[in-house]
């Protein structure tokens, strides 16, 4: 084999998105006959991921695909990789400003934009007026922070009629999110007009709680459209979400890596589009596989 590509994933198995990404990446790798892949998983643990990059450098791989558990903390080790002459491709979620000079390329969605999209959906769904609660991802994680920031900033700027009455973390966990929503309902009752959940997995948890409390007319907006979310949109109980395919995410990351290995020129930032989806345009999209 000509090339060895080392991959360290963020946290495979924590949700279907990351898992599907992992499977897609491995599948795609087998399609390149001259490539051998070493796919590791950091389990969401920064220190472990640093160790894994170290171990990949130790094995003198030809390129590293990195899905950072944290944008800042991986910067020094990425710098080290660069010093050792190994190109680093960041996937899914970008690393810090300062690290930009050491990476060869980034490929993934723009999570701030996703937050904005969600805000636009929410604004549209509530006709520019109402009170929403927000269920965020695991505290401290970049995607969670970005989606929250994009959502909040955009609402404040472009949709002043919609206000956020509380935010609590749902930890990317459907059961936790359901619990949080139950407590929101106890506290705010019918004052709630909308729910923003940082992914559909948690959004469905919120939907469960809403159904159980027998509340009507609450608009739920999620992100990373999951199959359950897709079905719920179709059924009309879920307002909208943002489509993001882990398969294209993975394929894009690998394609760029191959280009780099083959010596082709690549763009530094390679965002792929993550369109909004609602009942109105749902037929344009396939049901997600996860």
């Amino acid at each position, binding site marked *: 084999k000509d090339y060895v590509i080392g991959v360290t994933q963020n946290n495979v198995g924590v949700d279907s998105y990351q898992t599907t990404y992992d499977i897609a990446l491995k599948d795609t790798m087998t399609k390149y006959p001259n490539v051998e892949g*070493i796919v590791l998983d950091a389990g969401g*643990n920064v220190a472990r991921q640093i160790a894994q990059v170290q171990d990949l450098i130790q094995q003198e791989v030809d390129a590293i695909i990195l899905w950072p558990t944290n944008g800042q*903390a991986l910067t020094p*080790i990425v710098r080290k990789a660069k010093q050792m002459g190994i190109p680093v491709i960041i996937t899914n979620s970008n690393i*810090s400003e300062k690290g930009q000079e050491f990476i060869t390329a980034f490929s993934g969605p723009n999570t701030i934009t996703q937050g904005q999209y969600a805000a636009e959906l929410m604004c549209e769904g509530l006709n520019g007026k109402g009170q929403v609660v927000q269920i965020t991802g695991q505290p*401290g994680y970049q995607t969670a922070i970005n989606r929250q920031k994009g959502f909040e900033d955009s609402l404040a700027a472009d949709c002043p009629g919609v206000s956020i009455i509380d935010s609590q973390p749902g930890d990317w966990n459907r059961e936790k999110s359901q619990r949080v929503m139950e407590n929101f309902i106890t506290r705010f009752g019918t004052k709630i007009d909308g729910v923003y959940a940082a992914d559909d997995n948690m959004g469905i948890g919120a939907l469960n709680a809403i159904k159980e409390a027998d509340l009507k007319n609450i608009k739920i907006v999620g992100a990373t459209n999951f199959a359950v979310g897709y079905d719920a949109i179709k059924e009309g109980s879920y307002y909208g979400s943002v489509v993001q395919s882990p398969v294209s995410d993975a394929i894009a990351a690998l394609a760029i890596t191959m280009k780099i290995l083959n010596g082709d020129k690549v763009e530094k930032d390679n965002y792929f589009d993550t369109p909004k989806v609602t009942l109105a345009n749902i037929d344009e999209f396939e049901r997600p596989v996860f």
Partner: protein
Amino acid sequence: MRWNNFNKLKIQPIWFFVLILIVFFSSTSEYFFEFSNFKNIFIQTSTIGLIALGLTFVMINGNIDLSVGSMVALSASITIGLQGYGLGFSIFAALLAGVLFGALNGIIVWKTGVDSFIVTLGAMIGIRGVVFIYTEEQSFYALDFAFSDFGSSSLLGIPSLVLIFLFFSWLMHFILSRTIHGRNMLAIGGSRTASLNAGMKIGRHLMINFMICGFLAALAGITLSSQMGASTPNLGRDFELWAITAVVLGGTHLKGGSGSIIGTLGGVIAIGVLRNGMNLLHIPSFYVLVILGVILISVIYFDSLMKNKMELSQ
């Protein structure tokens, strides 16, 4: 007899595993048995290692400290967050925070009689909250690479972080085996009543060990943040479990009364070698979990077999 000698040298059975693992991985991965890889292993284990050193003391007393993981995050955040005032100051502040929160844990255990498990479980949640309040959920990063360059620097070919870890291992070993404090530690863990009857100041003693543990956890936070040139508020989650595992693998009993730094060192390195080796062998991540668990259990199984043998040969 053979076992007897080992016992005299106080070599814990865990070291045989380290040996076995090294032989195994050396023969299965071409990258394993290299100086640079051992450097990596040591750097990788130094974080959990420092924590485990402090935990050994607390656990010999028969207590436990679950707040170490959160302490790592707090100290890392302070180190990076206050670097504007000079690195020396920020490191001092981080260590001070470690000692103070350790003292707080200790004082509560001492003065209220609440089980240390509860006290430090509370602190694990609460200190994490303090971290998020202080950082406002943000990751911090170092202004330049000077700090992370230190993290990857070497002295006489040995990484500085490894030297720090080895120095503290030696120091803790010295305290445990040579000083009055060390002897009292084993006595208090072995029998509260006997220690009380002997007139020891148990409460104060326990508190000192919590402070040492807090200090070392804070130090681990500093060394870890120097590897990352950054801090994240989620740093150190589940570190407590791995550190405790290392300590127990090293022969310290949860109920207290026995334990050694050399054993803990063995436990730490066993886990480090295992993780490193599995990375090098490219084992799929789901299977890593299964293998890790199975090996952990087998280690403790063989450990008990060996201990039985030693007992018999005496």
